[in-house]
C-alpha cells in the first residue's frame, strides 16, 4: 500500500495539462529543433516529451503574461476614464463614513475581547466555580 502511495504518478488532470503543454511547446519554435532531435535521438521519447512540456510551460507563462497585460491595459483605461470624470465632477462623499466604520470595528473588537476574556476565565477556573457552588451549598 505504502509503496503505491509513494510512487510518483500523474493524476489524470495533471497529465492532460502536460499533454496540452507539450502541444503548446510543439507550436512554438521548439517544434523544429525538437523534431530534429527526435530524428537524432531516435525515440528517446521521454526526454523529448519532457522538453516539450518545459517549453510549453514557458510559452504558456508568456501567453498568460500577455493576456494579463491586455487585461491590465483595459482596466487602466477604465481607471483613466474614471479619473477624468472625477476631475470634472466632485461627488460630496461623506467623510464620516470611514470614521463610523472604524468606530463600529472598535466596538466589535471590544466585544470580542470581552468574549475571549469570559471564555478564558471559565476555562481557567472551572474548579473555582465548582468550589463556589459547593461553598454556596454548604452555606
Amino acid at each position: 500500500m505504502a509503496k503505491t502511495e509513494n510512487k510518483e504518478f500523474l493524476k489524470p488532470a495533471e497529465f492532460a495539462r502536460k499533454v496540452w503543454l507539450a502541444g503548446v511547446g510543439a507550436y512554438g519554435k521548439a517544434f523544429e529543433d525538437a523534431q530534429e532531435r527526435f530524428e537524432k535521438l531516435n525515440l528517446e521519447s521521454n526526454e523529448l516529451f519532457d522538453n516539450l512540456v518545459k517549453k510549453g510551460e514557458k510559452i504558456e507563462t508568456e501567453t498568460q503574461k500577455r493576456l494579463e497585460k491586455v487585461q491590465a491595459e483595459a482596466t487602466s483605461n477604465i481607471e483613466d476614464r474614471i479619473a477624468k470624470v472625477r476631475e470634472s465632477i466632485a461627488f460630496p462623499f461623506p467623510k464620516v463614513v470611514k470614521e463610523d466604520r472604524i468606530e463600529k470595528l472598535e466596538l466589535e473588537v471590544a466585544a470580542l475581547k470581552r468574549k475571549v476574556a469570559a471564555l478564558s476565565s471559565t476555562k481557567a477556573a472551572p474548579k473555582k466555580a465548582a468550589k463556589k457552588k459547593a461553598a454556596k451549598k454548604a452555606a
Partner: protein
Amino acid sequence: MADKIKTRDRILMTSLDLFNEEGEPNVTTVDIANELDISPGNLYYHFKGKDLIISALYDEFDHRMRDVLQAPIDKPLGLEDNWYYLYVVFEEIYAFRFFYQNLTDLQARDKATEAKFRRILDLKRKSITAIALSLRDADVIHARDHEINALTETIVLTLTYWLTFQELTHGEANAGRIIHTGVFQIMSAFAPYFGEGQRDFFESCIEMLNAALANS
C-alpha cells in the same frame, strides 16, 4: 502619422457622427461620401452598403462596451469610483446613441446582432450586480439578494432606455444633461437602500445635480 487615418476608419467615424446627429434612417451612403469629400465609388470600395457600415460600427460598440462592463466584474472598483463609473457607461452609450435610439430596428436587423445585444444586456446585469454587492459589502447599502436583483433590473432598464426616455420627455437635450440626470436616476434607485450615513450624501448629491443643471 495622426493625420493619416485610414479611409475605412474615417468612413466609420463620420458615419457614426452622422447617424448620431441625424438619425441612422435619415443618412444615406451618398451623404456619408459627401461629408467625407470622397466619391460614392470609393466608399463602395470599402463598404458595399450602409448595412455593412452599421454592422462594423456595432462590432466596435460591442468591443468597447464589453471592456467597460467587464471592469467591475474583473476587479471591484474603488468605493467612490462606482458612482463615477456610471458616467463612463453612459458616455459609452451616448457615443453610440443611434443604436440606443432605435433598439427595435437593431433587434430586427439580424439574428447575430440581436444575440450580441442580448449578451451586452447580460453583461450590464453582471456588472451592476458586482457594483451593488461591493456597495453592500462596504455597508453603503443594505439590501437582500432579491432586492439586489430587482435593483439591478431597474438600473439595466434605465441604462438601456434613458436616452430615448429623455428625448421623449424633453426633445433635444445636451449630452451633459442626459448623462448627469441618468447617473442621478440610478443613484435614486440605490437611495432606498442607503444606510443612515449615506442619506446626507444623497441629499448633497441632489443639490449638486440641481446646481449642475442650472449651469448647463
